[in-house]
């Protein structure tokens, strides 16, 4: 479903990604692990066409996205939900307006249907009754939940989550990981998560990819990663 070949990206002299290749199967939860600053978020943004790669190819459902223009990418992104690290909710909109925004933009739903849909996704992320609150009135964890609700509100077939548990305590991290897992299974969507939260990654992922110095250090099922003989991986997950 998502096919990445020889992808490279550098910022100035700093090479962030160096000819990496991998694929993500339809319906699986694929977690990209790595130390902070290793280029996980950059990789995720490239998968969505938000950053152009220096070289290499990325295809989603057989469509080569590196050759698409911005208007074509805008069309493609309607099918992809994206949860940003800090939620990236609009400050000037309340929760209801934030969540209804993609529906108003991309669906012909009537007001009543939009209200129902917003309530439904909010209940899915365990946040009923916060529709009138503004992002500044929400905690970090709540912002991420609202961000997740916005990412799944269009019933997208692909979900990208950028560091969904960063800055959260272990209990909230587990909760938000469970929510992503539930939403992903319920919507049968392909989910790519970047994280450095090893515990939750090993718990919810179908496959894990570990990046080190721009290259893939390990790729496999959680059980394979746990039993990897690679010294870096053993140290990373310990």
């Amino acid at each position, binding site marked *: 479903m998502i096919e990445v070949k020889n992808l490279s990206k550098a910022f100035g002299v700093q090479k962030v990604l160096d000819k990496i290749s991998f694929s993500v199967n339809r319906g699986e939860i694929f977690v990209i692990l790595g130390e902070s600053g290793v280029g996980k978020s950059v990789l995720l*943004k490239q998968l*969505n066409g*938000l950053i152009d790669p220096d070289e290499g190819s990325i295809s989603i459902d057989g469509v080569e996205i590196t050759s698409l223009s*911005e*208007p074509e*990418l*805008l*069309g*493609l*992104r*309607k099918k*992809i939900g*994206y949860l*940003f*690290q*800090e939620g*990236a*909710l*609009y*400050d*000037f909109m309340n929760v209801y307006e934030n969540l209804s*925004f*993609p529906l108003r*933009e*991309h669906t012909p739903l009537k007001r009543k249907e939009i209200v129902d849909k917003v309530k439904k996704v909010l209940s899915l992320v365990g946040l009923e009754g916060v529709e009138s609150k503004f992002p500044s009135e929400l905690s970090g964890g709540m912002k991420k939940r609202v961000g997740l609700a*916005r990412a799944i509100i269009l019933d997208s077939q692909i979900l990208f989550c950028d560091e969904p548990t960063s800055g959260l305590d272990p209990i909230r991290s587990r909760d938000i990981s469970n929510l992503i897992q539930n939403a992903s299974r319920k919507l049968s969507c392909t989910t790519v998560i970047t994280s450095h939260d090893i515990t939750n990654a090993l718990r919810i992922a179908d496959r894990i990819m570990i990046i080190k110095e721009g290259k893939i250090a390990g790729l496999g099922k959680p059980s394979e990663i746990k039993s990897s003989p690679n010294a870096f991986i053993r140290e990373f997950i310990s």
Partner: protein
Amino acid sequence: MKKENLSYIQNLIIKLGDNVCFFGEVFFNILRGRVRVIEVLKQIYEQGLQSVGIVIMVSLASGAVLALQGHVVLSRFGAKEYIASMVALSLVRELSPVFTALIFSGKAGARITAELGSMSVNDQFLATRAMGVDPIEYLIVPRMLGCFLVLPILTVISEVAGIAGGYFIGVYEAKISSVFYLNQTLKSIRIVDFLSGFSKVFFFSVIIGWICAYQGYNTKGGSLGVGKYTTQAVAYSYMLVIIFNAILTKIILSIWG
């Protein structure tokens, strides 16, 4: 030394090019009819409401000061009857368009940059693109169109307020009859006088909208960056409004006199 100069010039050219591309993108969105009327109306309301009070106060005071100075100077020549004409023509031809543009830039322009800058550092533009929506169309075009439509309205309000300020001084301080003052005001302003000032406002509104939206859209560096880019936006728009005012005044005077 040479290399440094070259790199500075290169950077300047790149920035100018980026500015032009940004404006081009906004312009093409408008040409293609990608204008969200409700968002534009919201901007007109917010930008207008934010600036109208201060525009009225400053214009009233400016009109009053013009009349006070006019009273002193013109009385020396026994020509205090011309206070009304002097106040009206100064305001309509020059002061109201420039004062309003500067006030608008400091209030609404700064707000646009700060608002967009905060969105930029919090990934909200990226989020907009990630949701399949063009941030230029949704967030920039309405703000720039808002500027273009609000500034002319504020200028007319400023002219009326300034004339009112002059009227109070003319009537109560210089003891000119109310009817005479109003008659003189209406008689002295020709359509050419009004247009020579008013036409500049459209250029100012484009300058302010362009600079403030561009600076906000390209803000980097967290909350410190928001402060830095907002200050830059106001400083650049002040500078360019004053410079373009000089250029436009020369052109307009050559055409209309």
